[in-house]
């Protein structure tokens, strides 16, 4: 079954009941496993939800991870609308980190925040886009399959970046493969500082201004994909490349542009990580967010609202799962990974598990 194939279900049911059923099924299986290892599933679920949403710091971390996943989710969706499967978000975000770091190193002693920050954003997007450009060009011109090339480019980025961080950008005298700390004028304002400005006090978390950037990206994504000429072309190529070519669209250009937009969006997650949280570049700071983005986009049906919600779900699982593993030594991080895996399995791989049943139910209702 191909993604995007018309379903007999009404759209609202597709977007609400189906994902809810899928998540419920995933939780049910998780509960079973939890019960098998001798923990109380309901108590664990309560701890997980409390860890993610129950207190200020938990919420901050949840939204911090959500920010990452929104960017990488939108990145995957952008390519998806053109019929491309970009699994290279990881490498594109990693390279965007390089763009940010080089920009900061060049200018953080001379430029003020208001000039430096936009420059960093542009650098992140440009480096992310550039890393996506090569597989895009290979796909459009030579027919090299994008899934293969993007995933290979992830590995190239690991090697390249490890060399650069470990041998070139490493802080002099440091034993750790990490760069020096960025100047404070390159720091994305932390949420606690932003809100303190208007009199609201929240606990310190890595949540930062990038969250607003992610929300803006969601809106912009919606406007561009569904309310612009270019978005129309993008979706046409994605639905039927031959028809698009016949209609006189420049398919090559659209494929390349879609991938570059995808890479640029993935690159913005590096802004959240580096400028918002660590304030320096560590080896492998991306840590799989590019891959989670694939699940987020699949689950969010490539729509910004869906992506926001599924990013929130994965953010909550990451944060709540960690809290759960702190509270229950029996629940290891591998268990948390299992929960995430089950959610992906039920929402991505088995997304059509409940659809026929549900469709029957709706038919009878009519």
């Amino acid at each position, binding site marked *: 079954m191909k993604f995007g194939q018309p379903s007999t279900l009404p759209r609202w049911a597709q977007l609400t009941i189906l994902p809810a059923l899928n998540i419920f099924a995933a939780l049910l299986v998780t509960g079973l496993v939890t019960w098998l290892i001798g923990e109380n599933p309901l108590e664990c679920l309560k701890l997980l939800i409390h860890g993610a949403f129950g207190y200020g710091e938990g919420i901050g971390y949840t939204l911090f991870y959500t920010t990452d996943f929104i960017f990488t989710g939108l990145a995957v969706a952008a390519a998806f609308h053109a019929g491309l499967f970009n699994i290279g978000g990881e490498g594109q975000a990693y390279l965007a980190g390089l763009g940010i770091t080089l920009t900061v190193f060049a200018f953080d002693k001379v430029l003020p925040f208001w000039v430096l920050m936009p420059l960093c954003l542009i650098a992140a997007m440009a480096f992310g886009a550039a890393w996506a450009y090569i597989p895009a060009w290979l796909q459009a011109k030579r027919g090299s399959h994008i899934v293969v090339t993007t995933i290979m480019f992830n590995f190239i980025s*690991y090697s390249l970046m490890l060399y650069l961080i470990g041998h070139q950008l490493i802080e002099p005298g440091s034993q750790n493969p990490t760069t020096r700390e960025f100047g404070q004028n390159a720091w994305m304002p932390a949420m606690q500082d932003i809100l303190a400005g208007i009199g*609201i006090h929240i606990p310190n978390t890595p949540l930062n201004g990038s969250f607003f950037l992610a929300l803006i990206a969601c809106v912009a994504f919606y406007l561009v994909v569904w309310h612009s000429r270019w978005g129309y072309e993008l979706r046409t190529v994605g639905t039927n490349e031959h028809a698009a070519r016949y209609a006189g669209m420049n398919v090559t250009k659209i494929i390349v542009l879609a991938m570059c937009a995808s890479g640029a969006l993935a690159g913005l997650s590096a802004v959240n990580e580096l400028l918002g949280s660590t304030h320096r570049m560590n080896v492998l700071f991306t840590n*799989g967010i590019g891959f989670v983005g694939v699940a987020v986009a699949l689950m969010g049906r490539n729509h910004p609202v869906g992506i926001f919600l599924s990013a929130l779900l994965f953010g909550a699982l990451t944060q709540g799962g960690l809290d759960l593993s*702190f509270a229950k030594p029996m629940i290891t991080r591998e268990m948390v990974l299992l929960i995430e895996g089950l959610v992906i399995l039920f929402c991505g791989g088995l997304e059509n598990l409940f659809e026929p049943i549900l469709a029957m139910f709706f038919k009878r209702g009519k």
Partner: protein
Amino acid sequence: MKIELKRVSLAVAAAMMASSAFAAFAPAVVYDQAGKFDKSFNEAAYKGAEQFKKETGVAYRDAQISSDAQKEQVLRDMARKNMDPIVAVGFSYTQAVETVAKEFPKTRFVIIDSVAKGPNVKSILFKEQEGSFLVGMAAAMKSKTNTVGFIGGMDVPLIRAFACGYVQGVKYVNKDDKVIQNMTGTTPSAFNDPARGTELAKSQFDRGVDVVFAAAGGTGLGVLQSAKAAGKYSIGVDSNQNYLHPGSVLTSMVKRVDIAVHNTFMDAKNNTWKPGIEVLGLKENGIDWALDANNRPLITPDMEKRIKTARAAIISGKIKVVDYRANNSCPVQ
């Protein structure tokens, strides 16, 4: 949110008072991304903590994380639970320890394999180069082809320090010997890829290597296995791995992370814990080469004598082993 915060801080204050009243000793270990059971570095820390528990009956807590952002979280969580001291395993914790140690000035923190600043932080480093030097000597003396190999895990300065010490040891015995070096990979999974270790070892054997040193965590198990299969010699790392393939594992470069964790818990318990930097080398028994019944037949009396002499000379300072990390460069290749 404000009320919530107040409640949390009240709870924290109450917990703090309770802890000062009853002052139960509760240490903790947090592992890095490689995980608690990595058959190598993290697992050694785990064993040290277990040993402490067995000896004293004092329970400890531990936790694993899976991303950079979680490092501060896990440390904070432990500190809030009044765990003390808190041992962070691995260099990647450096910044997180510095940040959280500032927030909890009364909690004692320990970081292994890196230096973190703070009046309540102890940094434990190892002189991996010294032990690597000794096993390098053993390799050079054992080699008939005058070509020995090195297989590292992830290409980071720490692993380069192993390589550099090893090469210095080889050249100390025979300055014309050739050392073929390979790093397994560029991600932390390079420390847990036995299949790739096997491949790298095989390709080194094809190029004339007859003794190979694996400083690569779990990847090393593949190297040791493939040396055994090819009838060559291998050298283990971190833990004493001589027993894995007796007759093939020439020796092991032992890094006593377990002792470091165990001792720091003990010191904290006995109130003799001090912050600052502690460097463990041959002299402090933090680093050593392994000689036991399993590899005794492989080490000739002459080899043993020369290695022991060199060991004493390093301790007394007569032989100076260069640390790659001092300038991020190695004087020999």
